């Protein structure tokens, strides 16, 4: 498995399917290894597998394709049951134009981005520090605090919306960014994951820094964090996606359209403007675009993240 770009056309004639499969991963050695080991190398099993995959992929791609298709139709064509595949009047950008001109979609995207970014930064910083504390320091009550933290993983945030709302009323924070952001920053799972991760960093590195006179702050900052970059990236990705897509709490804590996040705003529009399928799908496409693009560009990294967070390991 090399990353050099040897011309492959003649090589493709080789009979053995194993190198052929490997060639599919040329240049991406880290993610896929040991192809062919699960289903075997016979032509029949490969064909069957390919067919099964194609059917499943079709089932998964079709809804998205149809939504995109609809987004490029005129409203009449979108609600014409006789021409449900090919629009009579041709394709148009009207849906997108109307949605963008209305102007709230970019605002909600910005809100979603700001809120998700703030949640991510606070959560990751605070959880990393706590993870370090639970992993590498000793202080009275440490075990007890860690146990309480882990136990609280069981508490579904959905069940806290009522007291959170009451709390935001008390603190006079309803309809502010702070109200949306703050409760989302408590992530005991991330503390747990990061603690487990810090546990795996060899003591010797820490001891060496200590001999050089480094205290906890220096060790955390210049030893632990640089060694944890992939893990921090992984954790950040999941916190960000979670916050970007979070619905219930932003829905409960905001009623001002100017503060709505994307998932909340986009559904509010449907109720307010009635059913315009082409426009609705155009706004869905626009709303879906950012994260899907991010995934297309960083998918290898995201796939690796799953493994890194320890969820995928043994």
């Amino acid at each position, binding site marked *: 498995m090399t990353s050099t770009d040897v011309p492959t056309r003649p090589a493709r004639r080789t009979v053995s399917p194993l190198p052929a499969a490997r060639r599919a991963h040329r240049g991406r050695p880290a993610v896929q290894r040991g192809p062919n080991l699960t289903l075997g190398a016979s032509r029949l099993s490969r064909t069957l*597998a390919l067919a099964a995959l194609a059917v499943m992929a079709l089932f998964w791609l079709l809804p998205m394709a149809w939504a995109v298709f609809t987004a490029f139709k005129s409203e009449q064509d979108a609600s014409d049951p006789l021409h449900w595949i090919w629009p009579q009047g041709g394709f148009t950008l009207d849906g997108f134009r109307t949605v963008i001109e209305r102007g709230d979609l970019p605002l909600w995207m910005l809100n979603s981005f700001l809120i998700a970014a703030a949640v991510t930064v606070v959560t990751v910083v605070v959880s990393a520090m706590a993870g*370090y504390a*639970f992993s590498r320091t000793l202080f009275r009550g440490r075990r007890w605090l860690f146990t309480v933290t882990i136990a609280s993983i069981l508490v579904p945030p959905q069940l806290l919306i009522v007291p959170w709302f009451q709390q935001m009323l008390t603190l006079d924070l309803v309809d502010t960014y702070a109200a949306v952001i703050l409760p989302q920053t408590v992530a005991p799972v991330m503390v747990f994951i990061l603690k487990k991760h810090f546990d795996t960093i060899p003591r010797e590195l820490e001891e060496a820094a200590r001999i050089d006179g480094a205290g906890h702050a220096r060790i955390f900052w210049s030893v632990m964090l640089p060694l944890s970059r992939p893990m921090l990236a992984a954790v950040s990705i999941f916190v960000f996606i979670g916050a970007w897509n979070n619905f219930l709490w932003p829905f409960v804590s905001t009623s001002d359209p100017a503060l709505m996040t994307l998932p909340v705003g986009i559904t509010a529009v449907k109720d307010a403007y009635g059913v315009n399928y082409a426009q609705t*799908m155009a706004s869905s496409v626009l709303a*879906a675009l950012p994260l899907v693009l991010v995934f297309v560009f960083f998918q290898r990294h995201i796939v690796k993240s799953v493994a890194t967070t320890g969820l995928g390991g043994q």
Partner: protein
Amino acid sequence: MSTHLASPGRPRADRTATGLGATLRRVVPPGLLFALPFLVLFVLFMLWPMAQGIWMSLTDTSLSAHDPSFIGLDNYTEAFGDAEMWRAMGHTAWFTVVSTVPLVAVALAMALLVYTGLPGQWVWRLAFFAPYLLPVGVIGLLWLWLYQPDLGLYNHLLQAVGLDGYAWLSDESIALYAIVIATVWWTVGFNFLLFLAALQSVPDHLYEAAALDGAGAWRRLWHVTLPQLRRITGVITVLQILASLKVFDQVYLLTKGGPNGSTRPVVEYLYDMGFTGYRLGYASAISYIFFALIVLASAVQFVALRRREK
């Protein structure tokens, strides 16, 4: 002084430091200092709300202006006799069963197939995982459109092959399953990635040994791959059950709990009670009853897993 505990016998270089930071370090153990930002948020937005929730469940707190008064266990007694609440609990439980099975099995099938080294890796990964990235608002709009009785994709397709369409979301007998289908489509990608990652960590030498012993594809799958995946399958199942129990978003967006409350899960019931019925106290009581059931279910799962591992 607990700072001494940090690492016995290490050189105490920081003792000579002076200034505010050093003083602080001497008074508060550094470990606690590191954990403090998290602990503050944890107490403020987890422990306090939980305590407040318990208190509210013992009062008649309402969204309207009047001052709440203590009513003891009245909310709980009322909830236990509330047929609608039990119905919602039933929907949640059934949704969890019906969604967890495909969300684990389909994800496993996808991962096994993708992992075989067929060409086009990134296309498959994208196809299966991309829906997970869609905000739930988009999921709501998209599936309302797909399930639209006259214009939706699925009825068009059924009619194209000569079958009758369904009133997917307004037929009481199938609405919940329609939501399950949308949920599987939306979220299976995450479990798929977890399985894929686990497959990659199955040691190659096991397969090589199996191949040397002349094991064919099915035997390798049955005797190497699946046993190696047993642990992660257990983990994914538990995570999925916990996730499915909390279902709200897509149900609310697709059916608002209807038709006739036939799809309404617990979280939506407590949302309705609290925020459209204005009864925050009663909603808190329901939260706690549900939470108690989740803890119970988790304890049962935990014991079951323990036993199986032994």
